[in-house]
């Protein structure tokens, strides 16, 4: 009897904290890669992994908030690409940095705002609206550069956003940490965060509780666009060039990170720290497969399998807890 109840307690704990399962998986993945390749656990590669995960985690924070409202934002990759090339173009015209930054952020926020407006005012499925927005933003990005990539010479920008180091730590990590703290605080410690969770948990009950459901959604999509724009700058600074196709598929990484971190599609979960863990897992898998020399197309296959397995596991856990 004692055994049974402790098994049940472990199950219950896992249901409440799905991140723990991800954490165990994370350790497992590291062990597998470390045994398969001696180059995996070197200092150099670990810093690669962290860098890779950092770029994913920024957009994953935004995605976590969108998922928390019960929605989804597929347009972040498109926004990222558009902001990246527009900024590159402005650099090439010699526009001052602050104006470039403001313009990029405004584009991201505007696209996100439009997403939110259409979703709430016409009551349309978020994935349809944001899917259409992918096409619009990508098209605009291609049009802006005529399909070419634009190289930039902006050392200060590159160093300040991603390439530089401060106290021996890559600058990018400070930015990620800033986002992490702000968004974690917003979601978990503010009334607005509670409202986000309420809207996703049960939007009708949220309305009956006097929450301005549409306003909450519009704000969250706007923030998601803003964050995607930030990621656009990060990408530009890392590549030193504006490529209209960058960011393709990043929404998948973001969704996968959030889901691995315990956030679901019906507004459940929402632990930003879990999302960081999810981003680390995705970053590690991508890096590990590269280190092992797995074909980059096949890497997508493996990633897809892992995402589906996680979703299956989390859905069956949720079903069990209903019983």
């Amino acid at each position, binding site marked *: 009897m004692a055994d049974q109840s402790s098994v049940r307690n472990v199950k219950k704990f896992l249901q409440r904290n799905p991140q723990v399962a991800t954490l165990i998986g994370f350790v497992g993945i590291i062990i597998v890669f470390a045994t398969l390749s001696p180059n995996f656990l070197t200092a150099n590669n670990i810093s690669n992994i962290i860098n890779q995960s950092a770029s994913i985690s920024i957009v994953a924070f935004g995605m976590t908030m969108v998922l928390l409202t019960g929605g989804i934002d597929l347009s972040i990759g498109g926004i990222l690409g558009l902001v990246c090339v527009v900024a590159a173009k402005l650099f090439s015209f010699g526009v001052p940095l602050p104006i470039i930054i403001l313009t990029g952020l405004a584009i991201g926020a505007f696209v996100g705002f439009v997403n939110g407006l259409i979703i709430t005012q016409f009551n349309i499925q978020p994935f349809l609206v944001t899917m259409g927005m992918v096409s619009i933003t990508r098209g605009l990005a291609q049009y802006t550069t005529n399909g070419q990539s634009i190289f930039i010479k902006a050392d200060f920008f590159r160093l300040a956003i991603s390439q530089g180091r401060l106290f021996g730590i890559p600058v990018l990590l400070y930015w990620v940490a800033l986002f992490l703290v702000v968004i974690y605080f917003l979601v978990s410690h503010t*009334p607005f965060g509670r409202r986000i969770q309420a809207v996703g948990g*049960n939007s009708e*009950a949220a309305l009956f509780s006097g*929450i301005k459901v549409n306003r909450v959604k519009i704000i969250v999509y706007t923030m998601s666009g803003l964050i995607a724009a930030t990621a656009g700058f990060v990408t530009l600074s890392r590549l030193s060039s504006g490529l209209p196709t960058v960011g393709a598929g990043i929404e998948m990484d973001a969704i996968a990170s959030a889901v691995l971190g315990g956030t679901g599609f019906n507004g459940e979960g929402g632990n930003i720290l879990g999302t960081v863990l999810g981003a680390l897992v995705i970053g590690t898998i991508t890096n590990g497969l590269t280190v092992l020399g797995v074909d980059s197309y096949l890497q997508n296959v493996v990633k897809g399998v892992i995402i589906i397995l996680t979703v299956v596991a989390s859905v069956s856990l949720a079903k069990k807890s209903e019983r």
Partner: protein
Amino acid sequence: MDGHILLKMEGIAKEYPGSLVLDNVNFELKRGEVHVLCGENGAGKSTLMRILAGLIQPTKGSIYIDGEKAVFSTPKEAEAKGVAIIHQELSLCPTISVAENIFLGKEKTKHRFFLDKKAMHKECEALFEKIKCYIDPSDNLAMLTTADQQLVQIAKALSLNTKILVMDEPFSSLSDDEAAVLFDIMDSLRSHGVGIIYIDHRIDNFYKIGDRVTVLRDGKYVGVKEIAATGKDEIIKMMVGRELNDIYPKYNKVQDEIMFSVKNMESDYVKDITFDVKKGEIFGLGGLVGAGRTEILRAIFGIDAKSGTIEINGLCVEIGKPWDAIKERIVYIPEDRKRQGLFLGRSVRFNSSIIFIDKLAKYFHINRKKERASVNKEVESLKIKVASIGDLVSNLSGGNQQKVVLSKWLMMENINLLILDEPTRGIDIGAKYEIYKLINDLACCGIAVILVTSDLPELLNLTDRVAVVRNGMISGRLNRDELSQESVMALCV
């Protein structure tokens, strides 16, 4: 009617753990008869029909079809014996055509794999001919009016060679003209020898179409009468004649000042709604399910758009949206607690504090210690049974869930108006009693209370005044000394 007995249900009982839903019920249906089955909400009508349809099994009793004993362990078996049910909620698929709905699951095919649309349309037309209505079989179901959709359900039932047709409140969403068409169809089915079991709340309708009526009350068989030879009063008495016991505390004191008033309110669903509620008064809205009671509450609270004036403490207020209502310190406990009241995937703490959350925060930061303390206090005073306030509300019982809904509102201070929509539906008697006491306590603090309930004894025993709603309008008002089951029922039907 030729006296041949199509269906006999004898000594039917249905027991769920802890409650006897049906107790020794008899029912009989003749060929070519319209037999009304009536009783209050919860009397057991639907359970009896679910047994007939093979959806659930009786604990005791037997069913005879054409004199032969029948056991229906699945709906298919009941269907094979000619039993068809038309439900309150339409059970058709709105996105496909009329013909496809009628032949759903038994499509006609040619060359094995291809639908034979022509043959299906032809047969549909023949069915519609039989009930004398003109619906294009190729129309999408969603394009039809509710009334026509009902007719499609009837046609579908006829396509199954139905001998026994159960119609569960078929008129509840129909206009008078549409109802007249349906009466004609029922009449013609009757002359074709179909036996119809017909459930309705509106007694006037019984006299228009019914031959006999069987009355159930609290799961028990009360009796069967020839409708033509029975007065309306007698039927009402059979329906409601239960003894009341003392589970209804009442100790609120109505004050003189008017706290809340609504004048000439109109929405898409209700019109010409005027009433007022005094401080400390428990004001009841009576009426049948679907009469428009909930719609009145939704309009007051700003869920549905409306016109008309609302005054609180004599001051005119604008309530366009729920947050305006909350600003005026109006509390609305909605009817469907799972859909409208709770965040099931979240904790008790989350649910209880969501409305109050701004008050618990300083510089955008929620003071969790304060939050925990206030929720704990509320949980204690409402006696919500939880291991900790971190428990998910989905794991609580119905009564405790309802208390969580109450708790989230009761953290509000200086409530002016408390609106309760079916606050005790589906919860056990002990929790009911506590909620009754709570309503009294709140009224004693000078709060005005509006109570909507389908539980008639609850309405009669808790309220000071009642307005009865019928077809989206107030059909009559009763003071406490005029309140009786008969007087309320008479205004309902």
